[in-house]
């Protein structure tokens, strides 16, 4: 059935809820593009024949054209949605993505991500005076400068920018500046405790 593979790509994305990025289906994409190419070639052939007089082919040509448009729409939607997810990853994980996620990205997507990172960094530097403003911090308005966190799993030593290290062992509790903990809270290593 025409368009199945393209729709399949879209369905897979729809199933991957919560911003999760499934692996890039290069093979299926290639097959969908191959299908489009095949449809287009047949249409090419039939158009010349239709011009020559076989008007009964017009409906078939139209049908194939619709399939092509459908494929195009699905593939573009697939690629664009993935880009949106990758963009969200920059806000969630920071500028370095975990290897597992990078593995799921195609080379072009990685390139796009790097350019987006650069773009964002340039913008953040231009805002907020000399040092720039890190917009990826404090996405929800913070209630306090320091927060109490509990370690949910054994993480090992965690180095903070000013050189101090904190040993994160399961069930240990720490009272640290909010901005030092946000990354780890998002990753699920630390849990914010509200007293």
């Amino acid at each position: 059935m025409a368009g199945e593979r393209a729709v399949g790509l879209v369905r897979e994305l729809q199933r991957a809820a919560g911003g999760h990025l499934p692996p890039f289906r290069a093979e299926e994409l290639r097959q969908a593009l191959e299908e489009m190419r095949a449809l287009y070639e047949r249409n090419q052939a039939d158009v010349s024949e239709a011009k020559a007089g076989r008007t009964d082919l017009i409906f078939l040509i139209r049908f194939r054209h619709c399939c092509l448009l459908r494929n195009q729409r699905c593939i573009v939607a697939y690629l664009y949605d993935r880009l949106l997810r990758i963009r969200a990853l920059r806000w969630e994980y920071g500028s370095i993505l975990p290897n597992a996620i990078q593995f799921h990205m195609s080379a072009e997507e990685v390139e796009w991500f790097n350019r987006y990172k650069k773009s964002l960094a340039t913008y953040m530097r231009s805002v907020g005076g000399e040092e720039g403003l890190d917009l990826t911090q404090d996405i929800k308005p913070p209630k306090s400068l320091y927060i109490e966190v509990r370690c949910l799993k054994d993480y090992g030593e965690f180095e903070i920018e000013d050189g101090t290290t904190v040993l994160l062992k399961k069930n240990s509790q720490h009272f640290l500046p909010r901005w030092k903990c946000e990354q780890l809270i998002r990753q699920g290593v630390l849990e914010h405790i509200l007293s």
Partner: protein
Amino acid sequence: VRFDTYVVNTILLLFLQRVLLLVASDVDALCACKILQALFQCDHVQYTLVPVSGWQELETAFLEHKDQFKYFVLINCGANVDLLEILQPEEDTFFFVCDSHRPINVVNVYNETQIKLLVKPDDDLDVPAYDDIFRDEEEEEEESEAESDGSEPSDKRRRFEEVCFFCFSLKRNKISYYIREILFDYEQYEYHGTSSAMVMFDLAWMMSKDLNDMLWWAIVGLTDQWVQDKITQMKYVTDIGILQRHVSRHNHRNEDEENSLSIDCMRIAFEYDLRLALYQHWSLYESLCNTSYTSANLKLWSVQGQKRLQEFLADMGLPLKQVKQKFNSMDISLKENLKEMIEESASKFGMKDLRVQTFSIHFGFKNKFLASDIVYATASLMESIEKEGPETTNFIKALDSLSRGNLDKLHQGLDLAKKQLRAIQQTVASCICTNLVISQGPFLYCSLMEGTPDVRLFSKPVSLCLLSKYLLKSFVCSTKNKRCKLLPLIMAAPMDVEQGTVIMVGIPPETESSDKKNFFGRAFEKAAESTNSRTLHNHFDMSIIELKTEDRSKFLDALISLLS
């Protein structure tokens, strides 16, 4: 170093640094920890909290963190040992020790640099004079030649300055020779000083940062000492008086009808309430059966005891059906004047102290708890045998349950506490009925066998201590042997079946005017040495010891000969 402005200033210095909190596993320590956490959070002091359940964990935690922290706060651990010797810290490391264990090790008391003790000024430490125990080696040789028990004053003065120099010098091993006898007298009996939670509250008060929440934790800390029988009745009453003044100061707004607080605000009230465990969250009947005071005095393990209970209830005019219902569902007419009624009838049955001074907390319409309720709930959560991950998970759960936002955990704790109290009473009843408590001469001894119901509950130190105290109380009421009534008790229970270990606790005798001083710490140490038993003195309470099951009999024999 005493508790005065100097110490408060030093503590304020601590507030500029990052701190590691090492907290022991008992309810008083948890309460003290909550208060200190609140103070730190108020002043944005970065800290890390590590629960420790014994000396091994303390040492491990110290080794893991010593490169990252220079300031350590120890709660309910560390005072009764030579900390510097055990931990071997760098010279720029500081320890703040808030520990109710006594006697405080003399090295900790006289160390003026690295060890800061948080002790209330009126807590009499009874420490031997510095001159009596610290001497340098030259003086020691002179002494042994002269064989006098005190050198001349002028010599002493000179030596003191030299010894001062030695002590304050950076090499610890230059600290001099101890006079064994003086130290033996000082360290022979273990006991407990003021609750750490109360000390922390005092600190908060001195900094004018005390809140009603912190006051409640201080109350729970003190009540924990009372529930576990760690302090004398007099100390308890004195401390209640101190807390009562704070309670009035924080909670006087309700007396004025116009300015009273909303019902949802937390308030603490003084109570002269029944000492029946958890009775407002249970049924009166269950509580009467499972509180050691009533169970022991009425002798509820026997048939006559059960009859006496019926008579007791009949005397008060409380129908059995009502009394077996959940307390909240009892008829209101019966609950009016209940306390006075029970007290009156109780004195007819030989129970004159059924009411005790304590405090209660209210917030919202449904939530009212006595301090002892919280103690039982928190202790049960902390020693829960339901394995949900590493041991520290229980500590964390118990710590959480002390916050008012975690009522679900508190109720979980109350349910566990009921199970624990029932288990204790049933074990006590069976021990008494099957004569498992035997006199070994200088002490009573009872050993729980593997396979006894609920025996796993008693592999934990606090539960085992609670069981021992209840058992001793009941035994004293049950026996006719006058000499046995005055004996201390050693209780043993299987700890880890795979490793073949046994946990043993020793508790002082049960007398009206007991000073709660416990000599088993030293006795256990000596007995272990003399028999080469494989023992582990892991708990912060020296009267609790773990040993290999095979070594148990020779260990006991050594104890008997030691204490006879």
